[in-house]
């Protein structure tokens, strides 16, 4: 099976890779590029643990082919902090104990960042509906919702 050569940008870095035509973006990230921060919880777009953004749009990377990354800007959890400085969402997740096992956390952070880029002042209901595609089995979501809304407040005050 001949491979496809893909040139893309991930977290601002130029990246080249070869992938099979049927390989998902998630498989490319994890198995070819060593970026294991995005998780596979289901492989069918139901859990959101593999969430990334493509051209700023939130997608499940398990539902997108690696080849479709050609020429696009991909952002993953690995690019969320700025060096040593955590994103406010990352800080608030630690502060609010919004993670227990932490497997869903990267996907939820990527999705929450995408929410706040569109809506810097979401209601609790808007936050819950935006994150409805991200499954968490540990927390019951309570502390996650609080962390996102608190991060939004901090970000509004800082801007």
């Amino acid at each position: 099976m001949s491979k496809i050569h893909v040139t893309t940008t991930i977290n601002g870095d130029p990246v080249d890779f070869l992938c099979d035509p049927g390989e998902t973006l998630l498989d490319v990230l994890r198995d070819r590029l060593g970026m294991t921060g995005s998780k596979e919880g289901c492989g069918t777009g139901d859990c959101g643990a593999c969430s990334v953004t493509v051209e700023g749009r939130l997608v499940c990377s398990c539902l997108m082919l690696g080849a479709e990354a050609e020429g696009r800007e991909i952002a993953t959890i690995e690019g969320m902090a700025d060096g040593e400085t955590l994103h406010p969402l990352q800080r608030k997740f630690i502060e609010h104990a919004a993670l227990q096992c932490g497997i869903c956390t990267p996907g939820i952070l990527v999705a929450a960042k995408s929410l706040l880029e569109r809506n810097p002042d979401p209601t609790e209901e808007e936050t819950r509906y935006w994150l409805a595609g991200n499954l968490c089995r540990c927390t019951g979501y309570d502390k996650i919702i609080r962390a996102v809304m608190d991060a939004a407040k901090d970000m509004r005050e800082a801007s």
Partner: protein
Amino acid sequence: MALDRKTGTAPREFKIIGTRPARPDGIDKVTGRARFGADMSAPGMLVGRVLRSPHAHARIKSIDSSAAEALSGVHAVVTRADFPAPGEDVADILDNCMAGEKALYDGHAVAAVAASSAAVARQALKLIKVEYEPLPHVTDVDAAMAVDAPALHEGRANETVPDGHSPNVMARHAFGHGDIEAGLAQADRVLERSYRTEATHQGYIEPHACLASMGADGQADLWCCTQGHYMVRNTCAAILGITQGQLRVTASEIGGGFGGKTTVFLEPVALMLAKKTGRPVKMVMSRAEVLRATGPTSSSSVDIRLGMTSDGRITAGFAELRYQGGAYPGAPVDMGAMSAFAPYDLENVRTIGWDVVTNRPKAAAYRAPGAPMAAFAVESAIDELARDLGLDPLEVRLKNAAREGTRASYGPTYPAIGLEATLRTARDHPHWSEPLGPNQGRGVACGFWFNFGGDTCVSLNITPDGTVNLSEGNPDIGGSRASMSMMAAEELGIPYDKVRTVIADTGSLGQNEVTDGSRVTFAVGLATIEAARAAKREMCKRAAQVWGIDEEAVIWEDGAARPSGPNAGEHPPMTLADIAAIASNTGGPIAGHYEINAEGAGVSFATHMVDTEVDPDTGAVTILRYTVFQDAGKAVHPSYVEGQFQGGAVQGIGWALNEEYIYDDNGILQNAGFLDYRIPVASDLPMIDAVILEIPNPGHPYGVRGVGETSIVPPLAAIANAVSAATGTRMSDLPMSPPKVLAAIQAR
């Protein structure tokens, strides 16, 4: 305030316990750096995949793997024939990991392949020819108990099973005291009702994953996501016929378990593939494999007889519980039968549990295994009788509540327990008097869990610069490294950030029981405190040596050794860092360690309160308000205690309203994915209020009780009671999915 038993009965003020510091694995987990089961790779690694039975029950007549083995890129195929004959204690576990004579459920592993890529492995699975002889099957617990039901095994019933039962009945458990008939005769009203719950899955978001390597000399290494890597070591060594010392297991970060990762599935297979190929082999399950072929919990069918006087005294309680535990013996019906009436002080109580096998995946533990279904039946019955008699369901529970000195329905007599405190706090909470609108109903229920201790080892090492490394052997599933660091820092009198806790591999500590039974904060915490005390004794000895005084004349206070007593003399205190810096000159490195089979875990109780609204046109149930009241003994890190309360409640909400294993007439699982096996999502839920009560556990130096499991016990009944109140009809069959609720409303 907890009492410190080891140092007397004086009330103790904590400096660090009860605060909410950041967890040590926090930054790794919010940046994607944390390494979970599937995140590890090794040079020269192969990919392993499993071939699974498409039949619910079939004899395996032959397996021909020659075409698969001939495929370029395939390095080995493993079937049951590759494994040595197992010892009795691992026979069922091996058979569940790799079928022998029969495939016993849809998804049962029958062969596995190691190949150079996932694509080649998938192709190879299609080339393995398995000849099956399909057999009649049974998936329902009551159907499986019929004497003429298709039999999974012959002659395996425990001696507790009387003659004349279906061969699928594996064991009978009985508990209780008093005289049920006499008790029922004293009642003003007697309720007899049957209840059913469906099988649910723990639903951890991380599928099972492992990376195995094994040399020709029998030395092996395994990386895996598990709740207990010592259990994995012992089980895999027994299955592979190697010694425990030859197999080193390292626990990855674990992406949820809830009991589902307390056994092995892929691990022995990966090791066998690694052995045959001489290469590291990585195996990762798909979500469909997780749902079809790991360890969901039992479905249940329960009959209750309950008698109550007109003023709310329970005169007798009887429960007969039937749980199917999948294809092998060991449904958690014994714990269901023990826990069913555990919250109550009853003169006449009896429970009988039947352990039944069916053509489903073998049940694994799921958070308080066996208890939620039993509590669903008992707490629903109490609620129904209370309402029928016009009594307040909280007051009825208070009237019958177990307390210190109560003889529990399963045998022991309780020490100080927190049930009454949870009930009184619930009664006084604003939630209880919040007004309700049309189609809304409020429910309450109590729950109990035993809590466990078990084998535990902790090693605490003082570094030369005066910081502390704590090694423990229990995978951290919800923040326990933070709790251990807090307890070590509290005991040593040093700041929290001076302690770093790591989960050691199996080569670094003695045997550790699995992260289960709500045991870790209790048992590992106890061992951590004792290890710190051992280190303190050594540090006092070093200070005495420097000062030239007796060891007995030195005490440890506020993070430093201090002279104490009339003849100790005047010496400036020596801090932990001071002593660490000169350790090499005073006898060598300083450490404390502690090994114990921990007892005194302290039973746990909770009361849950929930408001629901039922849509009369669709039967859909909305959770409006939810409050958890639970005794934590002493909350070490309150945020993580709240997290356990909230997480357990929401898993219970899923069990009550949505989640169920659905099998078709052929015994094939119909909803092996998160789209159709729907767990609660953020938009389904309100905030979950968590009220922590602290009735100290006398068995722990700081009063800690486990908190992880009790929170899933009350929700099933609490929600059923709320929906029953909202609809005016008793809901006794879970899940309360919209079609079922709508049918109940229409039949009213």
